[in-house]
C-alpha cells in the first residue's frame, strides 16, 4: 500500500484549539495547543482527501456521513516537526526536531557559565536521596517503580526557564545513545495572541460581547546565529506520512493548498520521501541492559500513563511486565517520566458538536525498561524500535517512539 510523504508549511501560523470553550465568546479567550496535534493534521487530510475525490470524479458529492465513512481508513503513519533555513529546497532527516525528552533537565548556568543538560536516571525507590512514594499506596507495582535522580550526584542546579521545547536531530540521536551533549539552544516556534472583534453589520461598530483572543503558533522566525552578520529566517513545518483509504487512492493527493487547524489556515504541501522518517545511519547504540522509549508523538493508553499490555502478576513481584513491539521476550517497566497529561478535544463535523475529550501521554515522556531475567537489548532491536507505534491511535500517528539506552545503577548489577 503506497504511502505519501510530504511536509506541511502553514503560511500564517496555526491555532489548534484545545477544547476549552468551543465557542470563544463563552470565555473571551481561545486556548490553543503549543504545537499542532497529529489528530488535527489527520482531520485536515481527511477533509482534503474528500475534496480531491470529488474534484476527480465530477458529479460525486459526498454527504458528511459518507465523507466520514469513506475517509475513516486514511491513516497518518508518521508525524514529525521539521525546521530549516528559509530558501532550502527540500527537507531531510537532518531537519527533524524532536520533543525535548523528560529525562533531560536543562540547568541554567551560574556566573556566566553556559547552561548544561543533566540526565535523569532511575534508581531504586529506597536509594538514598530519592522520594519514597509515587502517590496513593494502593498499587504495589507503581510504588515499586524506580525514581529519577540526577546521573551525576550533587550536580543538579536550578532548571532553566527557557529550555527549548524541541531538540535537533543531532542532539536527540546523541542523547539516545547516552552521549553527553551541550544544552540545546535552538529556539522553538514563536507564539502570539491575536485579538478579534466582530463588527455588527447593521451598526458597523464593534460588538463588545464578541471581543475575544486566540493563541497562534508562528512557524516563521528570525534567529540570531553566532558568527552571522544578519539574522537568519527559519521556517518550521510538519513532516507527514499518510496512507490513503485502500482501493480509493486519489492521484496527486493532496492537491493544492490545505486548510489546517482553526480557521482553516492555508498550508502549502512540499513533497518528500519516506527517508524523512528513516532511522539515521549514525544511530548505532551499544547493546545495553536498559532500554528507554521517548515518545516522539503523544500516546494513547487505555490506563492513562501505564502502557497497554503491562500488568503486575498476581502474587508475583511488584512490577509491571509486558511486551514491546520488535523486542524479543518480556520486559519489566522500571520507571516512567510522564509530565502532566494532555487533554484533547475535537469537533465532530458530522454531528456538529464537540467529541468526547481524550487524555494522552504527552510527547517527550520517557519509559525505562529491563528484560525479564536480564539480558541486553541488541543494536538491531533498538534500531527496529525507531518510530515504532505503541498503544492506541495508530491511525493518528500516536505513540511513536524513539529508542535509547540507559545505564542501570551500580547496585542493580549493571
Amino acid at each position: 500500500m503506497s504511502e505519501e510523504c510530504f511536509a506541511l508549511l502553514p503560511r500564517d501560523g496555526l491555532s489548534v484549539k484545545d477544547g476549552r470553550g468551543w465557542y470563544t465568546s463563552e470565555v473571551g479567550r481561545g486556548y490553543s495547543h503549543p504545537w499542532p496535534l497529529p489528530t488535527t493534521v489527520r482531520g485536515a487530510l481527511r477533509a482534503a482527501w474528500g475534496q480531491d475525490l470529488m474534484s476527480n470524479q465530477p458529479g460525486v458529492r459526498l454527504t458528511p456521513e459518507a465523507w466520514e465513512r469513506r475517509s475513516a481508513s486514511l491513516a497518518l503513519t508518521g508525524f514529525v516537526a521539521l525546521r530549516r533555513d528559509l530558501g532550502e529546497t527540500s527537507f531531510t532527516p537532518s531537519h527533524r526536531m524532536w520533543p525535548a525528552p523528560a529525562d533531560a533537565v536543562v540547568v541554567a548556568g551560574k556566573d556566566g557559565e553556559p547552561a548544561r543538560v543533566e540526565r535523569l536516571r532511575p534508581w531504586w525507590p529506597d536509594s538514598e536521596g530519592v522520594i519514597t512514594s509515587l502517590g496513593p499506596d494502593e498499587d504495589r507495582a507503581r510504588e515499586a517503580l524506580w525514581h529519577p535522580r540526577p546521573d551525576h550526584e550533587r550536580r543538579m542546579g536550578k532548571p532553566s526557564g527557557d529550555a527549548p521545547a524541541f531538540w535537533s536531530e543531532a542532539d536527540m540521536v546523541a542523547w539516545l545513545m547516552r552521549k553527553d551533549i551541550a544544552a540545546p539552544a535552538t529556539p522553538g516556534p514563536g507564539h502570539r495572541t491575536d485579538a478579534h472583534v466582530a463588527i455588527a453589520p447593521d451598526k458597523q461598530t464593534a460588538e463588545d460581547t464578541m471581543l475575544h483572543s486566540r493563541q497562534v503558533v508562528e512557524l516563521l522566525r528570525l534567529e540570531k546565529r553566532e558568527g552571522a552578520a544578519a539574522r537568519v529566517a527559519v521556517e518550521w513545518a510538519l513532516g507527514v506520512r499518510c496512507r490513503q483509504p485502500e482501493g480509493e487512492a486519489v492521484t496527486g493527493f493532496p492537491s493544492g493548498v490545505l486548510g489546517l487547524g482553526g480557521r482553516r489556515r492555508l498550508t502549502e504541501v512540499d513533497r518528500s520521501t519516506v527517508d524523512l522518517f528513516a532511522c539515521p545511519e549514525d544511530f548505532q547504540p551499544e547493546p545495553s541492559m536498559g532500554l528507554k522509549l521517548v515518545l516522539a508523538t503523544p500516546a494513547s493508553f487505555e490506563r492513562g500513563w501505564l502502557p497497554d499490555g503491562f500488568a503486575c502478576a498476581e502474587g508475583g513481584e511488584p512490577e509491571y511486565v509486558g511486551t514491546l513491539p520488535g523486542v524479543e521476550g518480556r520486559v519489566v517497566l522500571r520507571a516512567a517520566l510522564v509530565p502532566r497529561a494532555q487533554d484533547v478535544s475535537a469537533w465532530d463535523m458530522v454531528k456538529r458538536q464537540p467529541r468526547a475529550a481524550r487524555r494522552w501521554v504527552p510527547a517527550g515522556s520517557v519509559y525505562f525498561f529491563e528484560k525479564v531475567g536480564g539480558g541486553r537489548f541488541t543494536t538491531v532491536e533498538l534500531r527496529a524500535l525507531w518510530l515504532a507505534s505503541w498503544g492506541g491511535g495508530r491511525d493518528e500517528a500516536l505513540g511513536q517512539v524513539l529508542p535509547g539506552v540507559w545505564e542501570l545503577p551500580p547496585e542493580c548489577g549493571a
Partner: protein
Amino acid sequence: MESRAYLLQALSPLHVGTGQSVGVIDLPLMRMRSTGIPIIPGSSLKGVLRDASASDTVRTDAVFGPRRAKNGPEGDEPSEYAGALVVGDARLLALPVRSFVGTFALVTSPLLLTLARRDWGGRQGGGEAPPPVPSLKKHRARVASLKSCVCLHEQAGGARVYLEDLDLEVDAEDDAVLGAWAEALQRALPGDERELLARRLVLVDDETMSFLWETAMQVDTRVSIDPDTGTAAKGQLWTEESLPAETLLMGVMAASASWSPKQAMAASAVLDAALGGQGTMLQLGGKATVGRGWCRLLSWTTGDAEARR
C-alpha cells in the same frame, strides 16, 4: 483547494492594530511576533469582503459561510455548512519610505520577496514566479535599473539612496532579478501606475528592512477635543501607527467548491466572487471615519500571471 495570490495596495494610511500596547505607541500595527513583519489578518479582509458583497445574500453565504442568526454570543450555534473561502493574511511586500531623492522609494528585501515567491509562484495558468533574489551585504541596496530609478543620488563614489536617515550604497550594476520582480508585480497594477514599481523599487538587506518596518511607519499623534471647552480633553492624547499610503502587501486566498445547498459554485467561481473586479476598493482596519484604510485589492488576470494552484 484552489488558490490565488492577491495584492493589497494602501491608498491611504492603513491601521490594522492589536488594540493595545505597552510600548511607546499606544495603538501599534499588528505584526508577526517572531519576525516583526506587519500583517493584515485574513479575518479582517474576509469580513470586509463579505460586507462588500452582502447584496446577494445566498451567494455571499455560499462564499463566506452562513451568517449568524443572532448577533452576539446568543448566535453561537454550529453552522449548517462551511464557507468555501479561506483568506490568508496579507504580509508586507514593499514599504514606501521617504527618500531624499525622488520623494519616496518602495523598499523591499530578499526575505519579503522569498515569502512572496512562495505565495505567488508555480501556480497553474500563468508564468513562472520571478527567480529568487540573492541576499545583499549589510547596508547595501540594489535597484532594477540605475538609469531609470528615480531615487538615486549619483556621486563620485557611485550611486546612493537616502531612506529616512539611512545612507545606503547602491550596487553599481542593474539587478535583472529585481527587474523581473517589478515587471511581474506591476502587471497587477492599473496601466497608468505600472511604472511606479520599476522606477521606485529598491532592494535592501533584511536587517535594514526590519529596521525600516519598525521605524519608518506612519505614526500619528491624535487628541480628543472636549466639546464643552474646545480644548484638548485630559488623558485623551494617543499615538497610532499606520502602514503608509502606497504600501504593498501580498496574500493568498483559497477556495473549495461551495458547500451551500442553495448555491452551487466551483472553487474558481468562489475566488472570482471574492476578488471582485480588478482593483476593488475596500476600507480595511480602524479609523475609517478619518479616512484610514482605503485599499485596492488586486490580482493577476487569467492567462497573464494567474496565481492558481
